[in-house]
């Protein structure tokens, strides 16, 4: 079992979600986050006081998948989330120890 953590541009989310659904992946957790890599922020001015806003809004998608599905999911995300500009985001993969469904306490890949 692998966890895919994908931080993407909010404007790409609908396309990513639809593409993942098409390859059979429906379950995910989505969080609104702020952050930046090398992307510059913007400047706001309030009554003459300037603030540089470094933290930019992004969306973080998290999903835990059985190993056979992981590569296809990553390729799909890469294809649909990419705009080619700085600020597109990143994907992180990590191994997951265990998964448990709360409703009926199923374990392992059956719980995904």
């Amino acid at each position, binding site marked *: 079992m692998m966890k895919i953590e994908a931080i993407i541009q909010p404007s790409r989310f609908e396309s990513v979600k639809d593409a993942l659904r098409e390859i059979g992946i429906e379950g995910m957790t989505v969080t609104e986050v702020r952050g930046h890599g090398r992307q510059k922020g913007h400047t*706001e*001015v*309030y*009554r*003459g*006081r300037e*603030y540089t806003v470094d933290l930019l809004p992004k969306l973080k998608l998290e999903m835990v998948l059985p190993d056979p599905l992981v590569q296809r999911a990553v390729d799909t995300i890469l294809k649909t989330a990419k705009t080619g500009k700085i600020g597109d985001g990143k994907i992180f993969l990590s191994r997951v120890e265990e998964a448990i469904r709360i409703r009926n306490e199923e374990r392992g890949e059956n719980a995904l």
Partner: protein
Amino acid sequence: MKHLGWKCCLLMTMVLAAVPLLAQQPPSSAATGSPAAASSGIPTPASEVPKAVSEQLKQLDQRVTAAQSAGDNAWMLVSAALVLMMTGPGLALFYGGLVRRKNTLAIMMQSFLLMALISVIWALVGYSLCFGGSGPVIGGFEHAFLRGVGADPNPDYAGTIPQATFMIYQLMFAIITPALITGATAERMKFSGTVLFLTLWFLVVYAPLAHMVWGKGGFLNASLGGKFPTLDFAGGTVVHISSGVSALVCALYLGKRTGYPKQPMPPHSLVLSFIGACLLWVGWFGFNAGSALAANSLATSAFVATHFATAAAAMSWSIAEWIKNGRPSALGAISGAVAGLVAITPAAGFVGPMPALAIGFIAGFVCYWMVTKVKSIFGYDDALDAFGVHGAGGTIGALLTGVFAQQVINPIFGVGKPVGGMDGHWGQLGNQLVGVLIAWGFALIGTIVLLKITDMIAGVRVTETEEIEGLDITQHGEEAYNLES
């Protein structure tokens, strides 16, 4: 401050309308007035005809007075409501949106508190201190507990409306003036300290200033023969200079907010501020035009001047930002509007529409400069720019009133007497300066003394921990937004 001309015209029209009524009497009556008719044999008691006419005239006069009073009273009651709306929710929203989220309720609570507290003090003793008596500096206690303040007009102030209307209208001014100061102390003043300080401030600073400029016998009173008649139609000195200068003193005494100026503290909701600013603009028609104390052409003149000054100031602040930053901001536009409203306050019932545009245009630039350049040069943390907008705007407005006031708008010194610079009476600028300096002086000294007293009794500044956690939680045990619930 009232136009008498149209009242006489109306009375004359009524009298002329009464003439056809006399024609109802039999032809042999003295309506023709000729000796031939009188000697036709039918006796005409000479005393009855004049008495009937004078009776009718008396009744007509009463009806005219009642009609006028109804119009004036309706307008004044609406104006009082409009001015209260300026504090709640106008100012509460305007300030509320400008502070950080964790201090939203606290700043709103301070405005609301004053709506309650000042009202009670006013009813007990405040009105009397401001408008009772006839001393040069302060009123008296003759109207304490609102004794004698009822349906009968007080001809010294407003001869066509109940004195209770005048009293309740003036109360709304007394409420908003201390509320303005909370803009400078925002995000770091204790609630208990706020309550004590503003109570004392109302009694020691506001009441004398209100009496000196508007009260009978007040030595700055332009319409009741004060020694240095200061033209202040709706409160440039009494409201804006007093609160603005006091705000500066408070900001300096309290010190800067923790993290200021390095840490960004942008407004948490300019949407709230926008709504508040628009409510202030609309409400200000009650503040300025209502200060005519009647529903007459002077009220119209003040209404018009208020509106145009505000529009011009919003434009000039926006132009200044467009030039300086390359784009105008929403905060700048609404701040400009407020600056215009402040500056036209002393001038509203004395200047024409073109000078109003000029006053607004100037105020937008001056207040923009005060808030952006001057504040950063001196480094004081006037958190919501109470001094930059109200102190500076009120000062410039009061001085420009001396320049632009005209007798054709308001012959306040008597028919044919020049009023301001545009009438050639440049000495009025000197009187304006006296009023401005006295307002500055009272505010400066009064605030320093009262802050010290408040600090000794209740304390004025919250602890650093409380400040970082936020005033909503620490002073009021609440959160402004529980969006997850």
